[in-house]
């Protein structure tokens, strides 16, 4: 294993994780809800969901976060590597996969593991495994850097 120490950002990543943890904690302690982004979006796409305004406001907060960030600091680096085709395939897989799997990195990976849910632990192992495997196959077996 070959660690890329140059791009390793332990403190900002840990601090970002702490903020994410605080956000997930606030949402469950105050609103009684799980901060799972795919679940929130998915339920807004379905007719007759309850708690629409709370869910929408959480997403609005998420949506405006780069604007608020921009008031205090320069925007962090955001660099895509995929072309349009890769983005479409990835988007459809993420959309359908998170709905069938009932969650994503936030709902399963953070909230689910934190409440010690076996389903979320299994889900997290599955998407981490296929994420690692996909990058390995694309980059190292096929030589495609999406």
């Amino acid at each position, binding site marked *: 294993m*070959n660690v*890329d120490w140059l*791009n*390793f*950002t332990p403190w900002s*990543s*840990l601090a*970002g*994780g*702490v903020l*994410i*943890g605080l956000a*997930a*904690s*606030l949402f*469950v*302690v105050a609103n*009684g809800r799980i*901060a799972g*982004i795919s679940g929130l*979006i*998915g339920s807004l796409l379905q007719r007759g969901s309850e708690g629409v*305004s709370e869910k929408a*406001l959480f*997403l609005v907060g*998420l949506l*405006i976060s*780069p604007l608020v960030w921009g008031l205090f600091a320069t925007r962090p680096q955001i*660099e*895509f590597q*995929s072309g*349009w085709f*890769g983005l479409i395939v*990835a*988007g*459809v*897989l*993420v*959309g*359908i*996969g998170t*709905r*069938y799997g009932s969650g*994503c990195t*936030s709902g399963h990976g953070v909230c689910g593991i*934190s*409440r*010690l849910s*076996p*389903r979320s632990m*299994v*889900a997290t192992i*599955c*998407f981490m495994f*296929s*994420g690692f495997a*996909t*990058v*390995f196959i694309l*980059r190292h077996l096929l030589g495609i850097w999406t």
Partner: protein
Amino acid sequence: MIKLTALIAGLLFGLGLLLAGMANPSKVLAFLDLTGAWDPSLALVMVGAIGISIRPLTWARQQSSSLLGRPMQLPIRRELDPRLIGGSLLFGIGWGIAGICPGPAVAILLTGSWQVLIFMLAMLAGMLLFTALEIKRSY
């Protein structure tokens, strides 16, 4: 009040994603590239997030309502079924292709890159496809 806490929670969540580097697809892909030049930073995002939220979330399991008097709505399903496993595997493939998952996609939607717009539209299409298939299944 619950509207304000929802908004603040979403905002904090987004700032956390931006600070952590989760909203940068290149960094996510470098984390997923175990056999390449591996950037382990994002493992620390999980450590920080879970470290903070484990106590509030395990507390929540024993409550029937939140501190603001809202019903505690935690998932109740227990079964480890093919839908959970297959869906999560598909999600991971998509995550591994583009390095972006639903939270960061929302968090960087307003930064104006065409890539995130395409990803978001495709993701919403995937979610709507799921909903359509579910409605069909229930007939």
